């Protein structure tokens, strides 16, 4: 593994992230819209058990959504790099494909975790009470989930060469992933077929882990669906699988 290369891939992503104001603004605006427009509106209709407001209930889901969008967006930039040629500069270098995948995966992890932290800071506004330990827990989950989704995004990017595919990925992969993740409604309340689809979705486990961390003592329909250990194990195993498969796919020479 070439650590120089991994470092510089992350540094490049970070630099571009800081420079692109619009990306930062929309990254912060999206969760706000969901929390305060959708969440507040739905709160009138739905009043979850256990004294929790609907806005509070979707908070882990909105954190997950922030991670989903920012990680995928970062990884999908590989398609832009392919289109504009820069990816050949990376592929022609004496750097193993594994390092490239890990470097890009960590790039997504860094920018996505930053955005998740910004959203996390809203918790007092929502009337949530998080201890330091919980915040650290959320941070660790955010990092793991960001890496998992970023490497999944890299895998997607290996199949597409032009940015026209961006809307396909957004509409047919990212949006369904969001709605079938337990972000907006508890998995255990879903009809069977949807519940199965939800269980195949890596984001589900990330959001469930966040629920575990943010509402640790919750019981009843709004509580987490799996144990924190299960969630983390699934995220870890999937991350490794995505890295290995993506590296293999990049290795493939025509």
């Amino acid at each position, binding site marked *: 593994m070439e650590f120089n290369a991994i470092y510089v891939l992350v540094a490049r992503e970070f630099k571009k992230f800081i420079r692109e104001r619009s990306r930062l603004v929309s990254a912060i605006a999206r969760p706000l819209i969901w929390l305060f427009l959708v969440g507040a509106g739905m709160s009138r209709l739905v009043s979850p058990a256990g004294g929790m407001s609907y806005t509070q209930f979707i908070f882990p889901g909105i954190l997950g959504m922030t991670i989903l969008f920012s990680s995928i967006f970062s990884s999908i930039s590989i398609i832009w790099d392919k289109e504009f*040629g820069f990816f*050949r500069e990376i592929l022609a270098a004496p750097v193993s494909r594994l390092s490239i995948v890990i470097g890009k995966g960590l790039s997504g992890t860094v920018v996505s975790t930053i955005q998740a932290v910004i959203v996390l800071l809203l918790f007092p506004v929502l009337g949530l009470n998080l201890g330091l330990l919980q915040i650290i827990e959320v941070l660790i989950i955010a990092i793991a989930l960001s890496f998992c989704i970023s490497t999944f995004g890299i895998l997607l990017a290996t199949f597409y060469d032009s940015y026209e595919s961006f809307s396909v990925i957004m509409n047919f992969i990212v949006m369904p992933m969001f709605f079938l993740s337990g972000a907006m409604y508890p998995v255990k309340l879903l009809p069977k077929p949807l519940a199965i689809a939800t269980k195949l979705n890596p984001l589900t486990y990330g959001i469930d882990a966040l629920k575990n961390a943010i509402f640790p003592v919750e019981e009843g329909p709004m509580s987490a669906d799996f144990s924190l250990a299960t969630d983390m194990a699934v995220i870890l195993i999937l991350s490794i699988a995505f890295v290995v498969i993506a590296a293999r796919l990049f290795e493939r020479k025509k």
Partner: protein
Amino acid sequence: MPIIKVENLVKSYGNLTAVDGISFEVEEGTIFGFLGPNGAGKTTTINVLCTLISATSGKAFIDGFDCAKEPSKVRKSIGIVFQDTTLDKDLTAYENLVFHAYLYGVKKSEIKTRVHDALNFVELYERKDDLVKKYSGGMKRRLEVARGLIHRPRVLFLDEPTLGLDPQSRANLWGFITEMPKKHNVTIFMTTHYMEEAEVCDKIAIIDNGKIIVEGSPEELKKTVGGDVVSLRTRDNNWSRQEIKKMFGIDAEEKDGELYLTTGKGDACIPELIRGLGDMVLSVKLQRPTINDVFLKLTGKAIRVEDVSGMSNIKEEVRAYRRRH
């Protein structure tokens, strides 16, 4: 030992054989020109040599390393300037080069000096903090050349380095390219379909339909299509023809009122002609065979119908450019 060695290289895409059993060698410290029309197989060959695609059969070695078996060693010893830009337009020139240095594992303590030197070499130091999207085509190309040198490769591949540049930028870029073997201790492998550019090379191979049809120095190749042609208009063609016959022992051809004589050294015979014929001479023109003539003769077709904007003699343009700067 040649620094690049290619043996019977074949690359097929399904039914299409893009590279069809080519062999050649490139000596260290030289400029090797790989010429051919669109779709001849130039880029495909470069991609195999750069280990970006694998060959269907045959072998290729760079600096003694097998391109198929030791790709990582090959990659360390080469620099590439691709046919299409591969710069990150949202980074500055400086950042692009630093990125490259890290990617190629250049020692941290050396990165700064190397990047500065490279930028100075291509005269872009002043613009180093501009985003690449603000660069002109010629500046981008120069930057890519500089980037290709950052990790001190043994061989630099240039795929159509001057494509789409205006004559001034082309001459400017050529100035840098011709300096490189000495200044940076690097061998240049370049492809082009501008015939005039090939004349700067030490050795040329012409490829057509995936096969090398001829190989040699520009002079050798030009000899195969005959020598220089001097054409002149005179006050008295008959008298002049006799004089020429006396001086050079050559029969000048008369066509449309002009005299044409074919000779090995056209430039040397012009002063003699003028001395011998005195004020009988109205005008003299020297036409030298070009690589295009070589290509035309071998394949029966022109390499490319394209206006080269008066860049008929690249060597002179480069010299003129250097004088101006």
